[in-house]
């Protein structure tokens, strides 16, 4: 189990929260109208857990996801990552956080098209100040970990969707992040490949101890999540522990298709 280097906060109860959202409200201006995408969300995410955020489109799921990932700032309320209030960070500190603390995985894979698989994985490490040799070694190691040891020098256009997503996962892990944020990681993949990716994420979550937060529609995700947060109309509708939903998911997975 990889010990995360930047652990420096524990709550009184002994449970470590890696992300804490407090009364998060987000309003957007749509023309002259104010649209409230998030309406007071309070959510604590435990270090090392696998959390899925579920909800229909327009529910505020993506907005909440962006807040947690440091990609957007709340209108009111606050988001803490490692007990640091995101609102207090300047642009450079945010960039640092994105580089070192958070790894991102996207629905559309988002590999840099002009770079090979290995170069893609190396980029966050280069940003982080690793020498090229170190970055190459670790990049190869990570690509082997996700099962792409033979495709180091392929361009994204020469890889299948599942392979691209594996490269993206290796890239997300590059700087030993504490959190991996996955936005619909299986949204563009077929059923079987999607399952493989989910299993890989779960495995990394268990073996590396990295917290995984994923926004998804995919009910396959429910199977592996420790907790599922259902968002509806900008509020948390309910939070389910895995034990409570397992049977119901079995039903869904059991249906043909």
């Amino acid at each position, binding site marked *: 189990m990889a010990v995360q280097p930047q652990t420096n906060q524990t709550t009184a109860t002994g449970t470590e929260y890696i992300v804490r959202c407090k009364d998060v409200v987000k309003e957007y201006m749509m023309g002259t109208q104010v649209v409230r995408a998030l309406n007071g969300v309070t959510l604590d995410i435990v270090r090392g857990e696998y959390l899925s955020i579920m909800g229909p489109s327009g529910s505020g799921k993506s907005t909440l996801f962006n807040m947690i990932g440091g990609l957007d700032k709340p209108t009111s309320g606050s988001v803490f990552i490692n007990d640091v209030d995101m609102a207090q960070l300047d642009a450079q500190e945010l960039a640092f956080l*994105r*580089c*070192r603390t958070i790894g*991102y995985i996207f629905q559309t894979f988002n590999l*840099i098209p*002009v770079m090979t698989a290995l170069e893609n994985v190396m980029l966050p490490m280069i*940003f982080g100040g690793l020498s090229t040799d170190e970055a190459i070694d670790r990049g190869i190691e990570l690509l082997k970990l996700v099962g792409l040891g033979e495709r180091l020098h392929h361009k994204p256009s020469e890889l299948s969707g599942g392979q691209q997503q594996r490269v993206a996962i290796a890239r997300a892990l590059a700087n030993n992040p504490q959190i991996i944020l996955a936005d619909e990681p299986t949204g563009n993949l077929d059923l079987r490949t999607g399952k493989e990716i989910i299993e890989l994420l779960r495995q990394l979550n268990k073996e590396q101890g990295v917290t995984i937060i994923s926004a998804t529609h995919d009910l396959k995700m429910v199977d592996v999540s420790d907790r599922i947060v259902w968002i509806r109309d900008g509020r948390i509708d309910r939070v389910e522990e895995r034990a409570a939903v397992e049977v119901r998911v079995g039903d869904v997975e059991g249906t043909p298709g």
Partner: protein
Amino acid sequence: MRKDGRQVERLQLPFRVAFHISMQSVRIRFWRSVITAAGTVLGIAFLVSVLTAMMIQRNSGAVTDPTEKYRMTWLVIMSLLVCLVGITNAMLMSVTERYKEIGTMKCLGAYDIFIVELFFIESALVGLIASVIGWFLGVFAVVLIKLFSEGLKVFGWISPGEVFLYLLLSIVIGTLLSVIATIVPAQVAARMPAAAALRVEV
């Protein structure tokens, strides 16, 4: 992070890496680069053709109209300005096409300045190559035309040193033109939020 009492480490993009990325970007998006380069090529070709034509005329001993020089200068400046706008336009298109890539880089930790750097290196590269092509086309076109109208004696009126000087001039002006034209697009790119990486086209 300063709240933890830790030092804020600076993230970095070594020039070697930036250059490599930009170079690959030009190569892979070849046709997009050609469009961007076309502006510089044409502008420089026009500049060099005017210079070469004036040189040949001067060396041939023909009488030149003194107002001709000002008229030509005016034309060259206007053409270069038009090229500038053309390059800016092509670069802006290129930025909008790459929103996802730029957003992703930011998610990986890129500072705004990294994005600006990448675009500047790319445009300087394209500008450099385009200048050389433009210079060649300009000289070639004028010599060819004069060859038809004046015959072989044209070669006696060309001073190689001066033509070489035009090459240096072309590279300086062309590269500068390309980089200046990229200021606005690069800023647009740098301002793109990291969240752009998550946008999905419907």
